[in-house]
């Protein structure tokens, strides 16, 4: 049984998204997805400063056996990436909703956040 937080929003591609007080959104990989991937050994987080469209890959996670892109949950600009993952990619496994966050985006429009999956919808998607 993986952890799904009520106060977050989610994507079809297994990212969680949180709206911050300043209107930016922080994103990361869900507990379900980190568990499916296994140990993350490398994070390609080169999207810093890029203008991105919803659904566009903004980085990638490398596990021992697989690699998966992660995607912008909303249109906007990448304003921060988690540089700690360079040295410690395993944070995505050990603390996916906290220190293992992936990127922060300044959304082009606030409306897209509200279109993201709710915790309940995501739980169904993850089959839990």
């Amino acid at each position, binding site marked *: 049984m993986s952890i799904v937080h009520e106060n977050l929003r989610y994507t079809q591609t297994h990212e969680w998204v949180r709206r911050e007080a300043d209107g930016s959104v922080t994103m990361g990989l869900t507990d379900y997805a980190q568990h499916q991937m*296994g*140990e993350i*050994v*490398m994070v*390609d987080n080169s999207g810093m400063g890029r203008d991105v469209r919803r659904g566009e890959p903004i980085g990638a996670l*490398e596990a*021992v*056996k697989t*690699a998966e892109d992660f995607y912008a949950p909303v249109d906007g600009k990448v304003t921060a990436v988690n540089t700690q993952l360079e040295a410690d990619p395993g944070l995505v496994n050990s603390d996916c909703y906290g220190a293992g966050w992936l990127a922060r985006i300044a959304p082009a429009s606030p409306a897209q956040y509200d279109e993201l999956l709710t915790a309940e919808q995501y739980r169904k998607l993850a089959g839990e």
Partner: protein
Amino acid sequence: MDKKTPLFDRHVALGARIEPFAGYLMPIQYSSVINEHLAVRRNAGIFDLSHMGEFRVKGPQAQSFLDMLLTNNVDVEPGKAFYSTMCYPDAGIVDDLIVYRISREEFLMVVNAANLEKDWAWVTSHAKGFDFRLTNESDEIALIAVQGPKAQAIASKFTETDLEVIPYYAHVSGKVAGVDALIARTGYTGEDGFEFYVAAGDAATVWDAVMADAPNSGIVPIGLGARDTLRLEVGYVLYGNDIDHTTTPLEAKLGWVVKLASGKDFIGREVLARQKEEGLGRNLVGLAVEGKGIIRHGTEVFSGDTRVGIVTSGTLAPALGTAVGLGYVSKAYAKTGTSLEAVIRGNRIPITIVKIPFYTKGSRR
């Protein structure tokens, strides 16, 4: 409907992640691929490999039959084993396998689970005219491997057989945890270790005995995830990834199991002899990633603007901490030390052709 090995319930109880592989529900990992991998490099691990296929070849012409079918020399002493490829007439590989010679007239072929049906059809289609009996015992035989530098010390607790005197690629009949077993010093990890072939109904007895002692021995169960990283770190090829019907054993650097000089006739010989004479267009090489990134099956390899090869297996090598892989590269670029580039998600990453094995400190005898 995927099959279960006799140890399926054990894997579930251990909390393994189970996925279908080659028609079986197999444990992919129990705790973590990296931890399992390092446990085998440093201590020992136990593997359920009961999905592997076993064909018994028995009778007066068993040897001449295998001689025709396999590229390697099959005339080894009883009690010895050998690795071989089995080719199509065009020298493409049907499968790679280990063969145990039980007696003058009896051999046990151990084939890849993914190729089981194809192999059986291939082998039986060539059996006509030979005086021997062929039986598919894949469902009756279970295979448990104990691998790692401590494998002998641990396995010795469960058998009266003197394991020390069994050389690499040799085997004896004996008892393990009280049940009949073919005890072989073989494996796919680069470490010392044993493979126990037992009746399917006895598999749990062996597994439970070894696992009951795990708090003392430190042995841990190993899933197919770490099995793959272990074999890749020592450069062993995997059928379906690195070799298949479109590659020949010579291209795959398996020339040491192709006995062209011996004069023996075998399926694929003509094409292999020609390939040897004319030279290869490409061959399998070891690849080390110099930049950041992990090469994977299908990653393209370039020299400048020229595409010169493709990666067939790649991973982070847990015991080395770097990314490595196997791949086919055009002959002109295949020399050790050559600098090339791999394309990972659109980016050019520097890679170098290196010697195989990548990991050289294994305990294999």
